[in-house]
C-alpha cells in the first residue's frame, strides 16, 4: 500500500491503493488539462446500514499486487473504449468510518458523455474484477461481504 510517493511513475500515481483518506482534489488536479471540457468524479462512500443492519464501520482488504494491476488495466480499457483523455482511480483499504470515501474515480474528457460513461464502466469493473473485499462490522458481529460470481 502506498501513496504520495514522488518516486512513483505518473501512471502508478493515478491508480492507487491507500490506507489514509483519499485526496480527490489532488487526483483531480493532477489529471485535468486545458484540453478538457469535462471532469466526472465518482465517489463510493460508506453507508450506515446494510440489509437492515446498522453498520459501525468497514474494513477493506485486498490482494494488493493484483488489485493494483487490475486498476491499471481498467484504466487502460476505459481509455480504449471511451473518448476520454485521462482516468485515475484510488481505492482505500483498512478501517473506514461511515461517510468516508472508499473509492474515487476521476475521468477527464473533452465532452461530458464519455466521462460519465467511463466512470460507470470503471466502477462496474472494480466491483466485478478487482480483488478487494469489505468486512461489515455491526454492533453484534461482522460479516465478509461477497460479490456475485
Amino acid at each position: 500500500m502506498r501513496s504520495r510517493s514522488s518516486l512513483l511513475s505518473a501512471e502508478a500515481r493515478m491508480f492507487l491503493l491507500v490506507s489514509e483518506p483519499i485526496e480527490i482534489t489532488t487526483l483531480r488536479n493532477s489529471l485535468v488539462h486545458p484540453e478538457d471540457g469535462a471532469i466526472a468524479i465518482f465517489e463510493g462512500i460508506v453507508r450506515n446500514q446494510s440489509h437492515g443492519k446498522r453498520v459501525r464501520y468497514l474494513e477493506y482488504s485486498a490482494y494488493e499486487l493484483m488489485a493494483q494491476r487490475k486498476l491499471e488495466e481498467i484504466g487502460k480499457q476505459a481509455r480504449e473504449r471511451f473518448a476520454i483523455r485521462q482516468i485515475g482511480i484510488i481505492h482505500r483499504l483498512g478501517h473506514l468510518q461511515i461517510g468516508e470515501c472508499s473509492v474515487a474515480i476521476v475521468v477527464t474528457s473533452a465532452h461530458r458523455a464519455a466521462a460519465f460513461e467511463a466512470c460507470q464502466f470503471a466502477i462496474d469493473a472494480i466491483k466485478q474484477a478487482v480483488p478487494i473485499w469489505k468486512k461489515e462490522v455491526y454492533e453484534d458481529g461482522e460479516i465478509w461481504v461477497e460479490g456475485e460470481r
Partner: protein
Amino acid sequence: MSIRVLFFASLADITGIRETTVDAAMFSDIRSIFSKFAAEHPDLEARRPTIMVALNSEFARLESKVQDGDEVAFFPPVSGG
C-alpha cells in the same frame, strides 16, 4: 522448489492461513493444491462453487498448471468499491 499459496478475506478466516508454501513437486495444477487445503478444511470445500483463483496475480482456473516459483491465490467473489 515451492509454490506460494495465498488465501484472502473469508477464505483466510476459514483456513487460518493468509500465506504459506507447498512443495512444487507435489502439485501439477491449481485444483490439486485446492484439494489439499479443502481436505484439511471442510468449510473451504463447501466454498468451491464460488471460489476465485489467481495465478501470479492474473485470474486463472482450477485446471491451470503450476510450477516452481508460482504464486497461487484463492479468494471469494470480490466486494470492493
